[in-house]
């Protein structure tokens, strides 16, 4: 059938993900097989009318999916679809669909769906039976990112440089030189000795303009009169990182790339930008070089550029978080060192440690500071004054560097969190051995620890204390679990609202509190239970959860939620808007909505599983 006769259906299919990924021919095949059904308000679709039928796409109207236990599963409107989890069922379905308005549905039969799934991997993954595989289908970035990152940094100049070069003898005229540049599209010419090919100098386009044309030299002037003699060069085996170093040191934007004594290519700053992730590395290097807190604060603005670059390079969210954690580490340790320098020798050994997201290496652009300080032995008042000043100065400097004051006051400058090793141990004893729900909620951030500066052993002792006691204390785990499941993820997004489990509509999605944090808390719970030393949520899930499928699907959900969060923060940055974790649903694409629903469903399921596992510990 000619698709122009029925633009509606073809258009709808062509613009609905994942069918938008199909070829026109496949889209036409799909559209040509659609069945159309109409349901009135209050009509119910269930069991044999739903199981094994196919994919139901809502063209107009809206509907609710109700689980068999009567709970709301999702609310669906135009562009949403249902039925694919019931494709391989017979008879009784897992849920029923109740129409809230008169609705027109397009139905794609199981057979056609299977055919298209087999042909197109996007569709295949999207309609996989498992939410986590569907979330995998959202991957747009490069994987194995740490290797990717270091691989990029270690790439030799020779692999990245432009191989097309112009070589001219020193007596070549400037006009001929300009002509050669014009025809080859090169930025500069190499002036080489006619006999042995030795590099004598460089002539860039700007040399021709500023040194020849601007000075009124005749076109016949030999290039030797305007070239830069004895140029800085780089060996083709040198890593990219040294290329940038050399460019920054010598204030040049182009470098000839040499192999032995022959020019094999050229490299410029643009090649570096396109091919590397050098910015974070350079920031960290320059943080270490600074001599005052003021100088450090000036560097903080680079974080934004780095975030933008990493997003443009499609770096995986967990890598972005690790890079930002490394940057934060550099700031914290440098600030501590500078502060100690100005305050003099401390009265005893101590450690300044990160808590919360920095401890988990999950810092992002918006992260505030969570930290504490532990000193070796109980101190008298005058000794204590040192650490009061120390922590105050460090936390103030961190705020100035963009790690804003923690709203919960979980900072070392708060006397409560600047304590002796013995006091900290007492804290943990009371949190773990005599758990109290509120106290635990207030202290959860301190169950993620990482030493930033000072005597790391003091922090290790605290970590050991936690690991030794937490795993065996079922009442503690039960309380932690209860706290972890207090907040439920939303069911999904419905039109311009966020739909919560009690059927209530909220105007904004807080992707941190209603999503990401829930996974972080589950991971912490499992890590404590299995005495796992890992700090990052990804690692904790992999090591702490016996159920590999559960670990995998939670990881996928976490990655996707962070991806959505970062994508929106990136957009806000580019538009000059302020960043937040709050998202009005109308700013989310249909693609994001569909997959958020999957992520939320995974979280809800794993919350239930955790509750079954640990909930019984409460008497």
């Amino acid at each position, binding site marked *: *059938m*000619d698709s*122009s*006769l*029925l*633009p*509606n*259906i073809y*258009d709808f299919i062509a613009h609905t993900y994942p069918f938008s990924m199909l070829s026109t021919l496949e889209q036409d095949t799909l*559209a*040509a*097989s*659609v*069945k*159309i*059904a*109409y*349901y*009135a308000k209050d*009509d119910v679709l269930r069991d044999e009318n739903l199981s094994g039928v196919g994919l139901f796409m809502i*063209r*107009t*109207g809206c509907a609710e999916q109700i689980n068999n236990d009567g709970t709301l599963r999702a609310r669906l409107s135009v562009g949403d679809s249902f039925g694919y989890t019931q494709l391989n069922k017979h008879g009784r379905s897992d849920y029923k669909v109740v129409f809230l*308005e*008169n609705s*027109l549905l397009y*139905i794609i039969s199981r057979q056609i769906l299977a055919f298209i799934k087999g042909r197109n991997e996007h569709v295949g993954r999207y309609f996989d039976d498992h939410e986590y595989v569907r979330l995998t289908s959202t991957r747009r970035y490069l994987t194995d990112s740490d290797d990717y990152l270091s691989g990029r940094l270690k790439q030799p100049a020779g692999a990245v440089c432009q191989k097309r070069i112009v070589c001219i003898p020193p007596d070549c005229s400037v006009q001929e030189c300009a002509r050669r540049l014009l025809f080859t599209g090169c930025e500069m010419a190499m002036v080489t000795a006619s006999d042995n090919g030795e590099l004598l100098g460089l002539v860039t386009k700007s040399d021709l303009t500023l040194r020849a044309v601007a000075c009124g030299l005749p076109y016949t002037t030999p290039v030797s009169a305007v070239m830069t003699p004895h140029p800085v060069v780089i060996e083709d085996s040198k890593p990219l990182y040294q290329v940038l170093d050399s460019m920054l040191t010598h204030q040049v934007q182009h470098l000839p790339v040499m192999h032995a004594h022959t020019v094999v290519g050229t490299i410029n700053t643009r090649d570096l930008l396109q091919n590397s992730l050098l910015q974070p590395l350079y920031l960290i290097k320059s943080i270490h070089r600074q001599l005052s807190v003021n100088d450090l604060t000036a560097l903080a603005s680079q974080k934004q550029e780095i975030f933008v670059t990493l997003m443009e390079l499609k770096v995986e969210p967990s890598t972005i978080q690790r890079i930002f954690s490394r940057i934060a580490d550099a700031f914290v340790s440098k600030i501590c060192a500078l502060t100690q320098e100005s305050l003099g020798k401390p009265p005893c050994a101590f450690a300044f440690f990160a808590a919360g997201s920095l401890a988990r290496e999950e810092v992002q652009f918006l992260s505030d500071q969570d930290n504490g300080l532990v000193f070796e032995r109980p101190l008298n008042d005058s000794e204590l004054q040192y650490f009061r000043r120390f922590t105050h100065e460090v936390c103030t400097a961190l705020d100035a560097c963009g790690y804003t004051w923690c709203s919960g006051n979980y900072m070392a400058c708060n006397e409560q969190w600047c304590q002796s090793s013995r006091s900290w141990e007492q804290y943990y004893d009371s949190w773990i051995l005599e758990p109290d729900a509120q106290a635990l909620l207030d202290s959860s951030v301190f169950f993620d620890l990482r030493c930033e500066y000072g005597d790391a052993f003091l922090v290790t002792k605290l970590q050991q204390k936690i690991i030794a006691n937490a795993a065996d204390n079922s009442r503690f785990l039960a309380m932690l679990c209860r706290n972890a499941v207090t907040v439920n993820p939303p069911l999904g997004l419905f039109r311009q609202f966020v739909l919560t489990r009690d059927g209530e509509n909220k105007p904004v999605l807080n992707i941190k509190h209603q999503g990401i944090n829930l996974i972080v808390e589950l991971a912490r719970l499992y890590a404590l239970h299995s005495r796992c030393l890992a700090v990052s949520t990804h690692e904790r899930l992999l090591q702490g959860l016996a159920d590999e499928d559960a670990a995998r699907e939670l990881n996928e959900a976490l990655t996707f939620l962070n991806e959505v969060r970062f994508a929106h923060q990136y957009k806000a940055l580019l538009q000059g808007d302020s960043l937040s974790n709050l998202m009005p649903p109308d700013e989310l694409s249909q693609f994001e909505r569909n997959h958020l629903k999957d992520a939320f469903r995974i979280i809800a399921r794993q919350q239930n599983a955790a509750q079954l596992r640990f909930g019984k510990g409460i008497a």
Partner: protein
Amino acid sequence: MLGDKLAKLEKKRIQRLSHGQLDIRLQPLYRHALPSARTLLSELKFTALDFETTGLNFASDSVLSFGGVEINGLQIDFASCFHHFIQQPNTINPDSVVINAITPEHLSAGLTPDAALHLLIERCAGRIIICHGAVIERTFLLKMLGLTPDFALPLIFLDTLKIERSLLRRRRGVEDLRLAAIRESRGLPAYVGHNALADSVATAEVFLAQIKDVFGKTAPCLGPLFARSQ
């Protein structure tokens, strides 16, 4: 009483069959028994049908194209779509070309009138026909068969225009019974294309919506829709 009318139609069909002497082109239509007023819609097969014509004068105008889609088990089956142009003996009326965007090239590449009629009969036999303003399709079909407009074909036509009017009377709404207006007031998506196929699908969707209005939660059957289509 209306059941009577359906029964009468069926009686006529049987009579004519037993008389023999049936135009060979008509025979497929007579092979299928007509359903009764109580037959459930879910058991029936429908074809939504639309003609594009040179005008509304049955004596002088002719069918330019026809399109349709089947409804089986109360679902519109897109795979069953059909759409054809019909070759014209004379040049077509330039006014209708503007409305329908049908060019002489389309038409000359179309079916011969005989082939078109054969295909139409095949598509309609054993099925209930749904049209928006069924008098046009019914009358032009009779004309193509060389029959008078009052000939009692053994075909049941349901008319979404008349069904909609019967529903509106009850609701005391303003009467705009054009297909596009009905779709808009029912919240159905606007159809971009103006051709026989798009209109037949648009009609089929309206028909599904009307069934919900007419029958609510009770099992829909043929009689009430047939009555409202008269």
